[in-house]
């Protein structure tokens, strides 16, 4: 039951007309699921909007929304839009000091807060930012005796709204009718890990297009259920729980509390689910631990059928041809293992599940797909409504984030950066024309800051942050060669438990070489089990057996790279295992344990020269700082090892 309305308030009103009695929102309260129908939702939105209007909220004003996923807060989003105002969801776990910046930046005068905790924070903000005039709270607990000016409960505001509505007949409808698709629908703040947060302005048109693309791709509509449990200020939640909700007309389900999400999910049995990779990982860990405690026959059955699932499960889900015998066995497995397992995970009715936000481990991804959970990836950022690429059913490849979403054009810049143009690209950064100009070019392309490649089917593979990506020098020193993504290769290396850190060089060189740090604990264990005697880190790192062990890992990574398009040239040619651990105390790593590539290249210039100079070993003395501040010298002769390389292969799905 899609409607073609072009603003969010109109979408809501259309649903209220077309499916008034269908459930729009549910919330578990006092142990019982409470339901708002579309008609009830529209009515509350109207009351709330009129209440805001009665306090003087007008077109162009911003309404800050602070709290967890509560139905009233989602209604507040649409209510602000009904008046041509702009909702500004903020992260509820931000401390007052961080919140002040956003409240100030967005000139907020009206706020709706979830509860006492948030109200206290806002009152604290108001001490430095007195223009916050009205604070509306949803949950009155603990707030009974507050008498600060401008504080009002949700119920009271709706009451004012009904009176205002009666006194100004038609005003609300005029407001909704006046809304334009080009109006800013929401301001979402970027997390601000790099510099201070920026408010991303997205219009009704962009978010509706992004929502519609997702809804049509996965055929979502009335009858579908989604859990809304991720922060409302995060673009992903806004896409799933607001844009797709209002476009598709399915049902939002708000958990009883942040802790009960898993239980609530099992009760609802959502058909549509989103979680960051760590959620999926946490679920799998919980299952694995419980399986280890199970009785022996059950463990045997589990191992047996999971092996089958790993072999054919993903193919069955992708619709690839699978033999009759395997199909039959998978059917039995579905009855005895996969089905019950999905039930425990709350995923019995899942048609579509998405993950994004970080790279998902291959084993994890395969596990869910193999037991029949249609887990897919998408790619996007706040500036693109989290809507750039998504994986289509039947075309899911682990390495990629899928093809361009409907209405989106992708282009890879000469330096490897992913450029995006299309329906979901931001209008601007709020009050920051300078920042807007930096990311939006004259042709309307948004510069994502991520480096990626497109494969033969047009699927995007994100490999690195663009600023880290370099270029290989072509053999013979001619023009620029292949793209070189150091983090991408290093992450592949660090995937091995034996390798703690890796540093790759290759920018403007004709080959890639690497420094490796072994993981002292893992490799030490390995050495002990093999009866290999060693006297400390330096000794262990120099053992020929250890070098062979690392060479094996590198050969596997090279095989991987050879199979990937555009990566074959960046296979590691030579490596050496460093004689000391890279350490933040020696400035080799940042405090968050990121490799400082430039600094290391300078400090160990002798070694780098040796790697590229065709030597077979190199002596080095390094000063190290001990924890008590004294310094000492570590010296060693490091062997340089040639790594096994592979001929480029055609990518296999």
């Amino acid at each position, binding site marked *: 039951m899609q409607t073609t309305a072009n603003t969010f308030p109109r979408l809501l009103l259309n649903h209220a007309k077309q499916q008034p009695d269908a459930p729009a929102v549910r919330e578990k*309260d*006092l*142990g*019982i699921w409470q339901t708002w129908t579309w008609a009830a939702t529209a009515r509350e939105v109207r009351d709330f909007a009129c209440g805001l209007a009665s306090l003087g909220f007008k077109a162009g004003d911003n309404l800050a929304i602070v709290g967890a996923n509560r139905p009233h807060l989602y209604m507040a989003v649409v209510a602000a839009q009904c008046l041509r105002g702009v909702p500004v969801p903020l992260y509820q776990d931000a401390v007052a000091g961080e919140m002040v910046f956003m409240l100030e930046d967005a000139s907020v005068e009206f706020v709706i807060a979830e509860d006492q905790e948030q109200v*206290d924070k806002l009152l604290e903000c108001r001490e430095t930012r007195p223009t916050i005039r009205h604070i509306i709270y949803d949950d009155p*607990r*603990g707030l*009974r*005796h*507050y*008498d600060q000016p401008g504080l009002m409960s949700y119920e009271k505001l709706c009451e004012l709204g009904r009176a205002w509505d009666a006194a100004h007949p038609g005003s609300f409808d005029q407001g909704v009718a006046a809304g334009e698709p080009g109006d800013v629908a929401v301001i979402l703040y970027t997390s601000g890990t790099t510099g201070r947060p920026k408010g991303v302005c997205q219009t009704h048109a962009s978010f509706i297009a992004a929502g519609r693309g997702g809804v049509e791709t996965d055929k979502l509509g009335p009858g579908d259920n989604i859990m809304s449990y991720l922060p409302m200020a995060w673009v992903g939640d806004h896409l799933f729980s607001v844009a797709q909700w209002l476009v598709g007309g399915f049902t939002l389900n708000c958990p*009883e*509390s942040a*802790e*009960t999400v898993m*239980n609530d999910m099992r009760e609802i049995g959502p058909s549509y689910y989103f979680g960051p990779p760590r959620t999926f990982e946490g679920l799998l860990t919980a299952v694995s631990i419980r399986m280890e405690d199970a009785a022996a026959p059950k463990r045997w059955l589990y191992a047996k059928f999971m092996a089958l699932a790993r072999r054919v499960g993903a193919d069955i889900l992708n619709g690839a041809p699978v033999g009759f015998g395997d199909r039959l066995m998978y059917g039995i497995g579905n009855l005895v293992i996969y089905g019950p397992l999905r039930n425990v995970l709350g995923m019995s009715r899942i048609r579509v599940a998405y993950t994004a936000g970080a790279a998902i481990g291959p084993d994890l991804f395969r596990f869910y797909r193999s037991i029949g959970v249609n887990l897919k990836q998408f790619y996007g950022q706040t500036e693109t409504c989290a809507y750039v690429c998504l994986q289509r059913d039947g075309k899911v490849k682990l390495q990629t984030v899928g093809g361009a979403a409907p209405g989106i054009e992708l282009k890879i810049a000469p330096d490897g950066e992913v450029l995006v143009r299309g329906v979901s690209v931001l209008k601007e950064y709020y009050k920051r024309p300078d920042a807007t100009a930096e990311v939006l070019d004259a042709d309307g392309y948004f510069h994502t800051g991520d480096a990626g490649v497109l494969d033969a089917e047009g699927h995007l593979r994100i490999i690195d942050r663009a600023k880290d990506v370099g270029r290989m020098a072509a053999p013979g020193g001619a023009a620029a060669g292949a793209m070189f993504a150091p983090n991408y290769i290093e992450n592949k290396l660090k995937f091995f438990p034996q390798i703690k850190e890796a540093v790759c060089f290759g920018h403007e060189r004709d080959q890639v070489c690497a420094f490796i740090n072994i993981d002292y604990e893992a490799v030490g264990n390995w050495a002990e089990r093999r009866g290999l005697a060693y006297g400390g880190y330096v000794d262990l790192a120099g053992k020929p057996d250890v070098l062979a062990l690392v060479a094996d890992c590198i050969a596997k990574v090279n095989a991987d790279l050879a199979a990937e398009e555009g990566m074959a040239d960046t296979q590691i040619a030579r490596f050496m295992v460093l004689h000391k651990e890279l350490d933040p105390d020696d400035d080799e790593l940042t405090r968050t344990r990121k490799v400082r590539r430039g600094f290391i290249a300078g400090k160990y210039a002798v070694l780098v020269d040796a790697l590229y100079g065709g030597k077979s070993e190199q002596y080095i003395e390094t000063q190290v700082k001990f924890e008590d501040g004294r310094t000492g010298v570590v010296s060693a002769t490091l062997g340089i090892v040639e790594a096994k390389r592979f001929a480029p292969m055609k990518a296999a799905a």
Partner: protein
Amino acid sequence: MSTRKIGEVILDVQNISLSFGGVKALTDISFNVREHEVRAIIGPNGAGKSSMLNCINGVYQPQQGSITFRGQHFKHMNSRQVAEMGVARTFQNLALFKGMSVLDNIMTGRNLKMKSGLLAQALRWGPAEREELAQREFVERIIDFLEIQLHRKTPVGRLPYGLQKRVDLGRALAMEPQVLLLDEPMAGMNVEEKQDMSRFILDVNDEFGTTIVLIEHDMGVVMDISDRVVVLDYGKKIGDGTPDEVRNNEDVIRAYLGTEH
């Protein structure tokens, strides 16, 4: 932040003396508790704090003295009568049904409010069912209030200690008490659990206007959340007043820190 009004004296303890054989647990103790206040009883180990609570609660019957509750004068209290008058308590060593769920444990606190008979309750027949639904709703509000929704169906014995204490508080709250006696609600808790519990105690006081009498060892907590403090030492009252007054009281300092000889 709150404008909670402290009312008239609701509970007045006069000249209580309690002894077990030759051991004098309490000697001539008098103090009062005002409506809506948070009143703490502190003192070193063996000072008689729990005995004092047990006298108010009707578990012990003091040899001398009297207790006035809401204008009614008692020589000593009777525990059922006390409960019916709206005094609930939690215990230093938890008194919960370990094998029963959180929900059922808190339901037991509603027992006094149930009117229908045993048989009707067992059959969930007519009015009994309606009554149980109403009681259940009340219990759900407490579960919501104490933020233990996740553990609603979990047997209490499987919960960590800090949460069990919270369930114990929930069971006491289910009685809709006017006065809540808390016996060391924060014993054995870590800092975070103590903070949570302090917040819940203040919320109960603020939200329901419940008068609270608590025994506690953690001085920081006591000084932060109480309106007035009574200090006992060897069964005698050595201090009474606001946290600041008590903190500066010479006798109290001596009892806690010892004297210079």
